[in-house]
């Protein structure tokens, strides 16, 4: 299993176009990939399927929140690396 934590810094967080770019990237990999974050109100940790646009959207990740990306499977290493770099580069936006 491969796991990495990263802060989402782009303006809209994991919504709209960034969310769909994220899901599209996750879907390129065969590993099972989960993304989780802590609910700022309840402190509860929620985890969703990173390949599900509806799951990722309902996670409600806004600018400045930290997410954990966890992958398990044959391409777990490149999967996590690719997703982390996507977040780091603000989903290719300016």
């Amino acid at each position, binding site marked *: 299993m491969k796991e990495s934590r990263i802060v989402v810094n782009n303006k*809209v967080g994991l*919504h*709209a*176009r960034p969310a*769909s770019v994220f*899901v599209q990237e996750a*879907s390129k990999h065969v590993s099972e990939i989960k993304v989780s974050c802590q609910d700022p109100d309840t402190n509860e940790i929620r985890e*969703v*399927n990173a*390949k*599900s*646009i*509806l*799951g990722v*959207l*309902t996670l*409600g990740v806004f600018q400045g929140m930290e997410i954990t990306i966890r992958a398990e499977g044959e391409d777990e290493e490149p999967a996590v690396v690719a997703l982390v770099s996507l977040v780091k580069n603000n989903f290719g*936006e*300016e």
Partner: protein
Amino acid sequence: MKRLTGISASRGICIGPVFPFIRQELKVESYCVDDTKEEVARLDAAITKAKDQISLIYQKALGEASKADAEIFQAHRMILEDPELLKEVKTKIEKDSTCAEFAMMTTAQSFSDMMSAMQDEYFKARATDIMDVGNRVLRILLGVAETPTADLKEPSVITADDLTPSDTVMLDKRLVLGFCTVRGSATSHTAILARGLGIPAVSGAGEEVMNIIKGTRIILDGTRAEALVDPDDEMVAQYREKIETARNIQDAAMKHTHEPAITRDGVRLEVVSNIGNVEGARQSIENGAEGVGLLRTEFLYLERTSVPTEEEQYQAYKAILDVFGKLPVVLRTLDVGGDKEIPYLGLAAESNSFLGQRALRLCLVRPDIFKPQLRAALRAGVGNNLKMMFPMVATAQEVRDARKVLDECISELKAEGKAFAENIEVGIMVEIPSAALVADQLAKEVDFFSIGTNDLSQYTMAADRTNPKVSGLSNAFFPAVLRLIRDVIKAAHAEGKWVGMCGELAGEPMAAPILLGLGLDEFSMNPPMVPLVKQILRDLDAGEMRSIAEQALNLESPKQIEDLVKEKVPFIGQLVD
């Protein structure tokens, strides 16, 4: 015969059978299946077919609408590929032995509910997307036609409650003679579509529209805003003659449409077009428009999920500007308010959005929206003849504020070393009575005015043009409105500035003599109207029209003014009757 009246949404007359656009209700029953494996296979097949349909619509939307319109269908595709959604539907079939229809419906409903329960407007829009997609799969499973117009086979008049872009994208436009809708207004999607296609449309004709039985013969007169249901043969013959005459006039006008509009006494007028996408740009050139007097930019913002980026806007504007080359194109900056559903802008609903924080008022407090648009336009204007126009101006300070933001964008682009259009003309829409009343002050701040008669009429007359009960008052042919137009033109000319008009009035044959008489320099209208208005202007004498316009301003009602025009310029009367 029955006569229904509404609002004129697009001029012209057509005769044909009625085709009601009825959204079929999907009746889903819950039943148990024996072979769950087979049921899952049935679901998979339906989903594959739904994806194919969406791809097709996406391609079609790309071709004829805009990229922004098309993006919504890409979002639909992603929902259909969502592993969580698919897992839940399949689990329901496999574990509970429910049929595919019921499993799909309940799953889509629960995901949709989850989205609409969230505070954010963005999620609420996604809730609608999920239901749209779910219904598409359900239609396939139930064997219901994809769109209500799937079996539209002969040229017909479409009757509907109101139509949305998703309704019309799959419509075979060659089979549409006209539109008659229960609700809607002169500015609804149906109206804009009809005017672009050059076919008649009547909006707001009331509930009775949907009582007209499929196949009933109907005469739709978009000019007079009426529908004659089940007319006798004599009436039909009379209208056929009118259509024939109109066609002959249009054909004759078309022959000379690439020549300029010069009046009998040698006054050269500019006749340009109102457009909102590349298709409109091509149509303008075909119809002999000498440029664009109003490029609406809202199309880039509607029916999508995020603010269009500067780059996206740059590409879209450039594609349109390139069609016109050296011909002038007046780009109007974003003109929306709380009445438009653009969830990602996060606009609060306002109790009276037409008097609210809309258009320039919104842009001035939202540089995050305004600046990317200005930058994109400035960049796209390189090598073309771009002019910038701000909508909804009430005071001179607003113009100065807007110009300041524009100057900031110019400095930024310079600092970044990016190419942009230099020394462009900057103008404003005159559509608020206050702007018309201080036009002398505003004329000092701008290079040109463009009079928006639709809004100027409704604000001056205090009559909502989307409300059929009072829309009659929202008529630019009331002397109150015409007098404001006269003052605006005078004030601009005193400062040596030119004045255009991009409201509906500019494309009205009946108005051409008056507007010419008042000294209007530029007439901007929907592309199909260009040939006729050019022809009319060529047949008029500007000096003569000045005295007719003066007389008109002293009359009391649109009817009296129309009668005056018909009396003094008999050929106009023949054109519109």
